[in-house]
């Protein structure tokens, strides 16, 4: 087993990997940009190395600097997390060449599967249906236009190296095609260091269902069940749940076998996720892409299966066999994840920056919080606006949704605007609660981004705001400058007031 592992990431996923490493008795090494000097992913590591600069290119995407940091610290292995360099075969090769283990698949299968175009060919060889798509394309290219004419509009532009909605564009008609290809390519280059994009036929109103697979280096490959990820804004997931309300036991078995078949065909090792579009009416599914890394939403699988996926990633990478058998994979209860983003739902989900002046997440039975921030932390413009993930588990779907709703209603985040009210509105929505939703949910229910607030709550809010504005600030407070022992009790009643 490894002694020291460098985590080439930041935010909640780096904190989460640090925790598994420490629980396994392995020392985590953090890397950090200038803006992240005091971040929780640094504080939760045993060692840390500064990556000078702030942009992703200078820091978390900077292969030579990260590999050098790992060597300098004596790391045995590197865990890439998700995003950044996690699906970059060059990085995996650079790790191997420097004599360290890359915790993930081989560069070869990563190249084959991480590339959305080649991964579809593998799926087809494995006998799994795929969505029709073009080869890698460029703006104003003839082949690009031909594919578009053949399948008609709307069309999707996707990044070949992509994931998480980055480098993805929906093209409504011909005149937008070139600009979309250009813009997606640019975004993909910035996000993944790889600007290749391709076109894909647009399937209307599908559900997005993915299957987790895990494979060791001895040819043992299993699936860990599905996750429903249809609640998306700008093609980025915000709420996931497992089991999927749309997946029958029979469908679960078939999709699970399909995912394993693709992984086997690609000689895949370690954790990976096969994404499918599911037509909820016909029960048809189409393989979309394989994410050759840990997924953001892996905690819901951990919650229902009772295992630590990061631990298994590390064990498998260190050469241990995967001792879990397919028949042991029996989900218990239901889990849902909400992604807390620093973005303003009332301003078209524009990222919100600033200082987290209050950050008081809920805790308790069935709740898990994977967080990359702490109170007092600054949320900068440089990185992904996801602050944390809240996961609720319960013996059944109904209770897990209710637990999530209660937890969201108690989550105090002030200083940056977050999407918490929208998450709450979705979890409370009858259509979501009935499980009858697809990837168009947010588009069709604009009301969830502008929830109705009862008139008396509004009145109370106005009154309390006016009241809060009268609170003396510390500099004018009578006890400022006096010994803290003389300060007033931290909680005090200010008595009865008539509120309008």
């Amino acid at each position: 087993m490894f002694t020291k592992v460098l985590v080439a990431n930041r935010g909640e996923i780096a904190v989460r990997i640090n925790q598994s490493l420490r629980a396994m008795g392995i020392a985590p090494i953090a890397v950090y940009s200038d803006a992240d000097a005091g971040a929780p992913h640094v504080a939760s590591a045993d060692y840390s190395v500064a990556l000078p600069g702030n942009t992703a290119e200078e820091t978390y995407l900077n292969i030579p600097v990260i590999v050098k940091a790992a060597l300098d610290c004596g790391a045995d292995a590197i865990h890439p997390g998700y995003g950044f360099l996690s699906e970059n075969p060059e990085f995996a090769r650079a790790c191997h060449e420097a004599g360290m283990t890359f915790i993930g698949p081989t560069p070869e299968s990563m190249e084959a599967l991480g590339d959305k175009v080649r991964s579809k060919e593998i799926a087809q060889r494995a006998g799994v249906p795929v969505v029709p798509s073009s080869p890698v394309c460029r703006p104003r290219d003839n082949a690009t236009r031909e594919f578009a004419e053949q399948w008609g509009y709307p069309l999707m532009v996707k990044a070949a190296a992509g994931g998480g909605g980055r480098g993805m564009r929906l093209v409504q008609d011909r005149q937008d095609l070139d600009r979309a290809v250009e813009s997606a390519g640019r975004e993909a280059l910035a996000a993944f260091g790889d600007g290749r994009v391709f076109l894909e036929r647009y399937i209307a109103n599908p559900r997005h269902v993915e299957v987790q697979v895990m494979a060791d280096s001895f040819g043992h490959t299993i699936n860990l069940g599905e996750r429903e990820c249809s609640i998306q804004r700008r093609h980025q997931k915000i709420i996931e749940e497992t089991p999927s309300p749309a997946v029958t036991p029979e469908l679960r078995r078939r999709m699970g076998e399909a995912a394993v078949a693709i992984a086997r065909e690609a000689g895949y090792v370690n954790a990976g996720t096969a994404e499918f579009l599911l037509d909820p009416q016909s029960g048809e599914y189409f393989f979309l892409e394989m994410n050759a890394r840990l997924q953001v939403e892996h905690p819901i699988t951990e919650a229902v299966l009772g295992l630590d996926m990061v631990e298994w990633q590390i064990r498998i990478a260190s050469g241990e066999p995967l001792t879990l058998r397919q028949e042991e994979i029996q989900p218990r209860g239901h889990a849902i994840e909400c992604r807390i983003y620093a973005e303003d739902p009332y301003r078209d989900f524009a990222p919100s920056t600033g200082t987290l002046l209050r950050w008081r997440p809920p805790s308790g039975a069935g709740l898990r919080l994977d967080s990359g921030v702490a109170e007092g932390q600054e949320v900068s413009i440089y990185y992904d606006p996801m602050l944390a993930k809240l996961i609720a588990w319960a013996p059944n779907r109904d209770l897990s949704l209710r637990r999530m709703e209660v937890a969201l209603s108690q989550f105090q985040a002030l200083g940056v605007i977050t999407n918490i009210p929208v998450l709450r509105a979705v979890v409370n929505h009858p259509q979501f609660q009935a499980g009858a939703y697809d990837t168009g949910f947010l588009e069709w229910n604009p009301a969830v981004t502008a929830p109705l607030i009862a008139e008396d709550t509004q009145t109370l809010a106005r009154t309390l705001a006016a009241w809060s504005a009268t609170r003396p600030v510390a500099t004018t407070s009578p006890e400022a400058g006096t010994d803290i022992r003389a300060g007033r009790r931290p909680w005090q009643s200010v008595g009865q007031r008539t509120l309008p």
Partner: protein
Amino acid sequence: MTSTDGHMREVYPVGGESYRYRIADMDGLFTIEVEGEGPTGPKAEITIGIESRQAGEGLCRTQSGRTHPFAWAWVGTELHLWLDGQLFVFERAETRRRGGAENNEASGDIVAPMPGAVLEVLVGEGERVEAGQTILLLESMKMELAITAPRSGVVRRVAVQPGQQVERGMRLVELEGEG
């Protein structure tokens, strides 16, 4: 920072309406007058917790026993109020005269909806644009955001250039005509 006597403008989440408050703070007691609203509600007891210069928390209990935890933070000139799991943003009315984002928009300015870097400017001064047309690309947190024209008109001035860092509320482009 203390606004013991002032007006507040509500900017969020109830778009159209605007409430004004006059707050008088005398020896720790205070009265609140709400313009255009007369009724006086039930009595409530407020318990406050720790306060810093920027943020505080409290618990409000009305006479019916209904209990409402709340918290507040000053973000620039905005008062952010968390109440019963909802976020309300209020802005001091005085700032209006200094020119807030909303105000500028009405006057023909297109402002940055978030901080970030200007990636590309797609229009030139004097150019005619249609409502909904993309006029500028911003990049923030690794994402591109297309800034579109809120209405048709002619570009009077382009206030930024590619590569420039912008703050939220900063003027990007000035439009004229068809106001």
